[in-house]
């Protein structure tokens, strides 16, 4: 049983313009440790609380960022696979991507994506009460986590490849594919303890995106990004760096 600690960072709404966690005295955890409600704890303890939130709160959702979505190196591809494996184990989990950080105007499609300029819109529209950030660059994750804490009641979990995020309710650091799979195992254990029966099921397709036919898909289907996908003359792409 973990000792009772003051909860500094809890689900909001925290107010119009709340102080960032760093100003409240929350420090990033050292290697091997995690943050739970703004306090440094063992990773296992933080993982269990994160798992409980994803299993018991409404509309759990994973928000993968560019470092997972764009398969630009072997690590990213493996991490993306691990994220899908994790999503399959969370009952009724959805995946809503944060593909880039550009402002989406005149209006974001909150069912299709989340954006750091107004992440609260996606959270509120989909009534998401627990979410995981993974593969989002730290700067943009911090902006989003603060806005979500300010204006929503969402329980935020950051699976960070670097040093972590003070404004998330749960923040794990140095998280790559292996650590995501470890979190998945903890989540399955907590799910069983809670007596939740679930058969691993892939998350639903993103309703706002056209269906991708992998047999017939062409680089030109990617519009302005097509040039990024077409190998240069004579180039054989087996693996990127």
């Amino acid at each position: 049983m973990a000792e009772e600690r003051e909860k500094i960072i809890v689900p909001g709404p925290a107010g119009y313009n709340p102080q960032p966690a760093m100003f409240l005295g929350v420090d990033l955890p050292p290697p091997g440790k995690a943050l739970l409600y703004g306090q440094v704890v063992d990773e296992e303890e933080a993982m269990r609380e994160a798992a409980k939130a994803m299993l018991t709160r409404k509309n759990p959702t994973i928000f993968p960022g560019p470092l997972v979505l764009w398969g630009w190196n072997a690590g990213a591809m493996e991490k993306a696979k691990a994220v899908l494996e994790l999503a399959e184990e969370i009952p009724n989990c959805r995946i809503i991507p944060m593909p880039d950080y550009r402002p989406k105007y005149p209006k974001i499609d909150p069912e299709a994506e989340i954006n750091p300029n107004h992440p609260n819109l996606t959270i509120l529209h989909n009534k998401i009460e627990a979410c995981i950030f993974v593969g989002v660059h730290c700067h943009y994750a911090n902006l989003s986590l603060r806005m979500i804490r300010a204006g929503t009641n969402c329980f935020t979990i950051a699976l960070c490849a670097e040093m972590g995020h003070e404004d998330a309710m749960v923040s794990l650091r140095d998280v790559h594919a292996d650590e995501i799979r470890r979190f998945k195992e903890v989540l399955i254990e907590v799910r069983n303890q809670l007596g939740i029966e679930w058969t691993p099921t892939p998350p639903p397709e993103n309703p706002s995106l056209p269906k991708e036919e992998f047999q017939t898909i062409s680089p030109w289907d990617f519009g302005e990004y097509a040039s990024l996908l077409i190998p240069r003359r004579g180039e054989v792409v087996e693996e990127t760096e």
Partner: protein
Amino acid sequence: MSDQRPEQKVVEPEYLLKEAPREKKFITGSQAFAEAIKRANVDIAIAYPITPQSETMHLVGDLYAQGYVKDYYRAEEEYGAMSAIAGAVRGGARAFSATSGPGLLRGLEAIVSWPGHRIPVVLGVMTRVVNAPLSIQPDNVEIAYLLHSGLIVLHAENQQDVFDFTLAGFAISEKVDVYIPVVVPTEGFFVTHAKGYVELPPEDLKLPPRDPYKAPVPPTDCEIPPARIQRDAPVQKSNFMSYLIHAVWQQEIWSANKRAMKWIYHYLGGPIEIVNPDAEIFVVASGCAAAQGREAQRYAEQEGLNVGLIKIKSIRPFPEKEVREALKNAKAVIVPEHNIVGWLAKEVKAVIPNSGIVVDGPRVYGGMTLPVELIMEEIYKAAGVKKEKKTVV
């Protein structure tokens, strides 16, 4: 540039700064900047000359000729220099620049945008008078202009600090949880053109190269699609931004500034140095004034007065807790400064509960030196010691 790069072994910053054997040299502050750059694995240096900075960047230019720095050029003026630095760093390079007084103010619009752009870079500032009438003499009022933009500011007392702060500056500013610029100001001429003893690690060691992918923002090299990820980022699209993202963005920069404190402890042993912590009268100073304060503390000790010194190395992040703790039993705090506005005295007053004990001064400016006797006069007043003034005609 030399076709041949000097043989240098890459070592971790911890080893280079804290463990490598050091050899004592007698060099100027400008040379100390250059010695740091020699070991910092710098990709590019860009600057526009201005006294008293010119000698430093001349020496860095020599390093380019010798192959220690990969690229180097003189920009058209400071605004261009500081803007080009932002571009180079955003493109993945490790960069260094330096400037002084009016040059700093000319480049200031670009410089204060660096933190928001998440630009990890080191900027040397060789302080100089900025206000009319024109003068090239030392005066550090320009540091006041650097304090409210999110920059990390490490004020160097002497040539040794110049070397250590500059080298550590690269390691601190490139930490993923920090990733904002480090400015290393020191007094022009008093430090830059005067010689002092500096303990230097071997010159055949250097920092690891910058890894631009270990960053809280995407690099601009288009390797992470979509390629427009930075060009259209909200950082340059204010008309499309919500007020809220600007608010949390500012919070993020100041959070990053606070996060730098643990790295200042890690690489530099902490943001302050305390001499005689049990004293009731303290001299609190930074930069060159700390050197004079150090002398005043020594004089006072010789005269049997219980006086301490708090040297503040990190002006941003300001060591609020540390200063408050160190001054908790103080009866008087003397803050000597090389400027008329007293920016350090204001900082000290803001973080202690009993700001009335802070003595505003002594202050010198316009290039004046800061005689130890001026500080001693305030110490005598605080200690209730009456000294007869002798007038020699």
